[in-house]
């Protein structure tokens, strides 16, 4: 089956969120729920002596930022309802208390695969996280799978 879509959507930013402030309490809540006791993320005194000179969030905190409420309106659909098939995250810089994180999202690629259970179309949405200084923090590729 040929996948039909408007190629102009590839690479075009469709949504940029308002900045989301990060504080130490939000990082603590995250580390608590996943059982992370690494002092770089939990102990300000120990973290000060660490490689980042202060408290940082665990890298996976980057995937906790939500896209805007219109996000899914921009995810192209093929066949039956899609679901989250996985993520690829590039961690560029640490997130620190006091940062404000903005997400900017675009369709990175659309491709088709055929497996034992039939044909599937994958839509990859890339969200780039930047902080209040405009520094890139992470690229998060959301891989959505649709069975056709």
């Amino acid at each position: 089956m040929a996948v039909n879509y408007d190629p102009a959507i590839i690479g075009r930013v469709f949504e940029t969120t308002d900045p989301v402030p990060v504080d130490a309490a939000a990082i603590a809540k995250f580390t608590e729920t996943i059982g992370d006791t690494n002092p770089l993320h939990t102990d300000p005194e120990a973290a000060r002596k660490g490689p980042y000179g202060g408290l940082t969030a665990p890298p996976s905190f980057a995937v906790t930022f939500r896209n805007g409420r219109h996000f899914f309106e921009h995810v192209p659909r093929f066949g039956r309802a899609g679901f989250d098939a996985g993520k690829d995250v590039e961690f560029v810089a640490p997130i620190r208390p006091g940062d404000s994180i903005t997400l900017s999202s675009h369709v990175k690629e659309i491709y088709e695969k055929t497996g034992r259970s039939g044909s599937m179309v994958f839509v990859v949405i890339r969200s780039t996280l930047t902080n209040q200084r405009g520094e890139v923090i992470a690229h998060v590729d959301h891989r959505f799978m649709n069975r056709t």
Partner: protein
Amino acid sequence: MSQETILYENVNIGDALGPSEMYLSRDQVRAYAKAMGMWVARFTDDVEARKEGLPGMITPGNMSLAILSKLVTDWIGSGKAKMTRLGTTYRQPVLPDHTIVLQGFITHKNDQERTVDVDVWIESEDAERLVIGTATVHFPK
């Protein structure tokens, strides 16, 4: 978490991360869902999740990713090495109220870049790989 500082020179292809067992309770999954603004039925309520065709409430993919990320960062410890990439594929739902096993091993070293690649996965009690992934760790000089 490792108390030692892992040195690039001491890492070998085939070195293992884990296995590390973790009991994932319903309350822990609900706590994650609540804290992360993901309070939806499939992550919080068995009955409602079954109405969606799921075997019961499931663990959010982001939480599975965070658990695998922690496997890698625990191995790194508090040294200068840094995870620069993590990719995950959700193969089967991770069901709470079960013990999961986290594992990984070193698959590749790049001496020029001073990076190592790691295969990581979450396994069920029946040794079925529920979530698989790959990570890259950079060791600055």
